[in-house]
């Protein structure tokens, strides 16, 4: 029901830092109707051209400045993913993805108050890099 908020159109890009391509990044809105502490992001999966990105190569950021691995994020209660703001999901991967078209799937799970079962959404896009 919140799939439409997953994986913002046009957000996929290689990340360039100091002239080097250091990774690949997408953005998403929250699959919920309110903002939550980052620690309530339960899981994120990124699939590029059919291959799962290793979980420990993913980092997330609510502001594009401070980045956390998914393991770190489990205790990040002090940074908020605001409703209507993007979460940045970055694959730390030297060289990023090659130029051209790629099939990319983003899956997101969050925890909500008093509900023991995390829920979320997913979306696949063909993106040109």
């Amino acid at each position, binding site marked *: 029901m919140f*799939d439409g908020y997953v994986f913002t159109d046009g957000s996929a890009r290689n990340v360039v830092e100091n002239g080097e391509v250091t990774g690949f990044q997408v953005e998403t809105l929250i699959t919920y109707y309110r903002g939550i502490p980052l*620690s309530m992001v339960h899981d994120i999966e990124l699939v590029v051209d059919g291959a799962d990105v290793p979980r420990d190569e993913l980092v997330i950021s609510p502001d594009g400045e401070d980045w956390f691995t998914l393991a770190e994020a489990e*205790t990040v209660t002090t940074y908020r993913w605001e409703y*209507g703001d993007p979460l940045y999901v970055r694959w730390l991967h030297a060289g990023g993805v090659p130029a051209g078209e790629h099939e990319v799937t983003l899956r997101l799970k969050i925890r909500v108050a008093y*509900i*023991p079962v995390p829920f979320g959404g997913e979306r696949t896009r063909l993106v040109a890099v």
Partner: protein
Amino acid sequence: MSQIKTSVSMYSLQDSYARHRLDLEGVLQFVKDVGAQGVELISDQMITGTPFPSDATVTRWRDALDRSGLAPVCNDIFINSTIYKNRELRVAEQVDLLKRELDVSKRLGFDLVRLVSNTRADVTEAALPYAEQIGMAMALEIHAGMSFQGGLTSEWIRMMRRVQSENLGIVVDFGIFCDRHPRVSTDYFRSIGVTPEVADAVERIYVENGDTMRAFASGDGFGDVSFPPELTALFRSDLDAEFAFFSTGYESTPLDVLDEYFPYIRHFHGKFYEMLEDGTEYSIDYPAILTRLNALGYDGYISSEYEGNRFTPVDQPIHDHEQVRRHQAMLAAHLNDGK
């Protein structure tokens, strides 16, 4: 003479806000323009930095609220009991979070908060002296799928009846009065691949039993669900079970509960899924409810709470403005029914 008033929950405009068709000021202006007298907020949704928004953020909200002339009716709050992956928060920790939510609600100009369903009775009771001290009322939402028969809800209500405080009450969500299963939900699940026979069967069971919550579920919003064999025989995927479970989030409750709980009711969520062109709601008989409320002498607010947004197929436009407009028009047309 008693007079029911109308408000709009900003929840209804969530998609407009998330996709930047309306900002905070725009949402309030819209609510004003559709004729509501009050507004309901979800501070976690549109107040940046909640529960510790900056003074500038609070001032921006209060200025916009003042300019709109809308009454701040209710703030909908949550206790992030699942904030850590490795454990659920203990009572004392939840009490601290609840107090923070009361504080921010006060700063934002409210004197009533809606506690989300399944908020614990012991947590609420422990925070009550603080709520009384700062002048905040706490009202548990009675929401379909987790309404009066739910374990945590009934425990909370027992606490409320025992304690008898002006600062405790309930918010009844009209989703408990769904005479028909919302077809927008069925259509949405069909669009993402629910087995058509499952969709038909769920709709049929809803009609036969009044609702599917009583047929399948525990009334706690999650936990054990037992589907009848004639339904499970049709399941072809997890999505089928998900849809069947999801259908237990609507209830067809007799309006008599309004009489029974009237002394405790602080506010209503005018839940709606689909406003039709003829000015009626597909699932909920608003004229009947309003007639009953006028007979009881209700003089508080009913908030338009649009939930059809989540049943719009991916990438299709969400007609939240038109839906809220129609809903407020319907409330206005029937506000004095039965008087």
